[in-house]
């Protein structure tokens, strides 16, 4: 059943995408690139996905087409929308009798310009606190800086900002998120790092989530310090590879990437098995809670799946914090190990979303899900492990207006 001659299209000239498609015996869609609709499998940019699902364009996907983003993925992957949805979900959950979600993974965050005055109050309450300012919709560390003085906000307002101002006018139209800076990150070898982990969502309603067993820590090249003199040194504070690659200590050999397996071994050996288990449970909680927070708002189109890149920071107590969720995690490969990881990742994604290159229709999909409820379904495909399947959750109660689900363990 495999090796059907499906037609593929990709907006990314990335070997891990193209080689995977070619290895499956799929053929490239021959129509003119920008306008081609004659495809079965499309690895698209978020902008092209938006165009495809724009009702004004009058384009409807057929049953033999699958695409790698949900129409309004930005509810989760824009920093400001992610914060907004998490806060909303928390308020909803606080009203529930059964408190089942732990939200203590999002650092205190304010969205500018709307929440500027709230931020100023908090800022004055904690004058020794460092904050991190990020554009809501940019990537690769662009536009990010650390804030110790209100006056620094001139960078984004374009005009002088004083501590008694209650309103902030931004120079550009984009929103910013300002979060409490986690200034006690877990250090290994004296350096700060964050985690990049991959999560595949094949369906939002019911929610079905797979977690990938390979990921990596992205290390800074400079020793971490809270010294105020180094606050603008991005090689100390920002873990983005796009930034660290310009450090003269950057290595092409490992690219500053440290495997999740190595990190787990380190945490277990140095802190104990229980500490590792708690850390992983907390990370899984972050993933599930964040996905549940947008479950009600995401347009659950049957043609869609999404592979997210979760950025998580561990603090010195091994507590994980959610930094952001990426809709288009980088598929650039910086080392042979990196290439191996991403090749297998994409391969496993398609083994899940198109098992045997089959497109089940909607009715079949429902039947398939029903049958899976009864029969033993795979919980492991390649490097992916099923983290959560709401259709198997016995405590699932669906109402017309809201859902309240316990995380099935």
């Amino acid at each position: 059943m495999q090796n059907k001659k499906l037609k593929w299209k990709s907006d990314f000239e990335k070997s891990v995408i193209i080689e995977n498609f070619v290895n499956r015996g799929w053929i490239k869609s021959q129509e003119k690139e920008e306008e081609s609709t004659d495809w079965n499998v499309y690895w698209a940019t978020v902008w092209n996905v938006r165009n495809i699902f724009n009702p004004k364009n009058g384009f409807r996907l057929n049953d033999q087409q699958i695409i790698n983003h949900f129409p309004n993925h930005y509810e989760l992957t824009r920093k400001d929308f992610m914060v907004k949805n998490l806060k909303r979900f928390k308020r909803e959950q606080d009203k529930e009798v059964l408190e089942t979600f732990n939200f203590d993974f999002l650092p205190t965050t304010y969205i500018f310009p709307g929440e500027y005055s709230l931020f100023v109050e908090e800022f004055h309450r904690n004058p020794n606190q460092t904050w991190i300012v990020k554009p809501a919709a940019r990537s690769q560390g662009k536009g990010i800086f650390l804030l110790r003085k209100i006056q620094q906000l001139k960078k984004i307002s374009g005009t002088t900002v004083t501590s008694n101002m209650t309103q902030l006018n931004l120079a550009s139209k984009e929103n910013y998120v300002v979060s409490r800076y986690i200034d006690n990150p877990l250090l290994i070898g004296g350096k700060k790092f964050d985690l990049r982990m991959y999560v595949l969502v094949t369906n939002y309603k019911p929610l079905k989530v797979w977690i990938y067993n390979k990921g990596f820590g992205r290390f800074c090249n400079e020793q971490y310090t809270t010294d105020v003199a180094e606050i603008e040194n991005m090689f100390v504070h920002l873990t983005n590879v796009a930034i660290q690659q310009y450090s003269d200590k950057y290595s092409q050999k490992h690219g500053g990437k440290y495997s999740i397996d190595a990190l787990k071994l380190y945490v277990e050996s140095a802190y104990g098995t229980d500490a590792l288990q708690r850390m992983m449970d907390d990370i899984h909680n972050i993933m599930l809670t964040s996905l549940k927070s947008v479950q009600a708002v995401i347009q659950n189109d049957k043609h869609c799946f999404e592979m997210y890149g979760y950025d998580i920071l561990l603090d010195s107590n091994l507590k994980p914090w959610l930094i952001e969720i990426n809709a288009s995690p980088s598929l650039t490969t910086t080392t042979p190990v990196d290439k191996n990881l991403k090749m297998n990742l994409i391969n496993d994604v398609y083994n899940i979303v198109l098992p045997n290159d089959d497109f089940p229709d909607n009715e079949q999909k429902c039947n398939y899900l029903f049958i899976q409820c009864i029969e033993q379904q795979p919980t492991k495909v390649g490097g992916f492990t099923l983290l959560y399947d709401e259709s198997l959750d016995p405590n699932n109660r669906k109402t017309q207006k809201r859902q309240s689900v316990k995380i099935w363990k």
Partner: protein
Amino acid sequence: MQQFDNQEILMKLKSSKQFWDIKKKLKQGLGDQQKIGVNDIQKLAQSCEIEDQLIKLISHILKKSKKRETLKEDQIEFLNTSKIKWTELLFKNLDIVHQKTKNQEEDDTNTDSKLYIYDEKNLLAFLQTFKQQQQSNALYQNVQFQSNKLLNINIPLKSSQSILDKYQYLLLQEELQDDKINKIRKQIENEHLDIELEKIAQTFVPNGERCLLYLKYFEFDHQETVLQQNFAKLQKECLNQLFYDELLEIDGHEISEDTFYFVFQEQILTCLKCFIRDRTIKENIRIQLQNGVKKEHAEFQLPVTGFFPFKNISKYVAPLCYLSTKIHIIYALFKEFFCRYFCFLHAISSENNSILSLCMQIEEIVSTRSPKLFHHLKVIGCDTLKLIIHQLVYCFIGDMDPPHILTIYDQIIGHDSLEILVILCVGFLNKYKPKLLLAKNQENVQQIFSELREDRFQELVQFAYKQ
């Protein structure tokens, strides 16, 4: 360590699980007897072999309590003179390296990377010279030398079969269930006697308890403050720069490129700088590496450790960085591992654990059990030992992922021996045998090993026993 008195022996006994098992057996054997005399206990102990067990336990404690002495003289005189020659050679290399570093300081474009005193290839090449010397020695005229082996020197050698038999149990090891793992965890927490810890290390060590096992085995578990203070003293001494520091920094470049160890680069360097200043190493090391020949008017003498740092010394520290967040613990473990075990990999000696013995064991096994491979490698100019010397000397660090390296370390402790490396080297050659047999020259062989590969501990053990 001083000789224990009776009270100390009793304390040590009481910290052993075996002691409590013996006591339980005695209690069960004596049952509900009202009056129990010493004779009753002795009779019972003799009848069910408890007395033997107790004697073994006590003698083990006494043996461990004796001060560890550094082996300086080998039973084979030829090797003692060879050690002197090796030391002289290293002094010469040191002069060359020093000159090179001076040239580099003067000329930035000169980036000669061979800034080390010796590496594993130099060591093997030196060991190779023994064969020619022995052949010309009148004492060995009647001994038949097999010319196809790289090293076939007349030293007492354990039988290869005994090594294969010793580790055969590893083939039967299965993945343990959670309840068994929990039992082992409790054992490690409760056990103090090294003979019991060795048994655990031979079987399975959970990642979360490995550091504790190692600390207990080396009797560091209640010594943290002392370790911290000693390390702090050494760190202070590092403020005075030594020429060897420069060599250690250069050595650290390779580990800084390793995907598993680059994060520990600074810690590794700090540990090594302290190591070469540590005066206690000379009295703690199990075997003398260089014979301490003092070169008069020389700009540099041997470090206070009594031996020169060598290429890739950083590798020995690296895996231990996984075990603790505290650098003084990492240092203490590295120092102990080196002084007890890794020193033998650089020792000109006939001891069982020495590089010479291990190499000869490997040649013996491969030439006997895989003669086709052995011969083929010779024919294409790529000797068996030259192929695996790097893996052997550096315990596969850099070739296997850290969990497998730590399993090797467990086995080293478990048997108080480096012989596991013989098994793994044989397994390594057997694993790649099909490709090696197709290789036509050294370039082909290098190609095989330059490809991305993953070698695992259990896998290599399995291959070692495949015919």
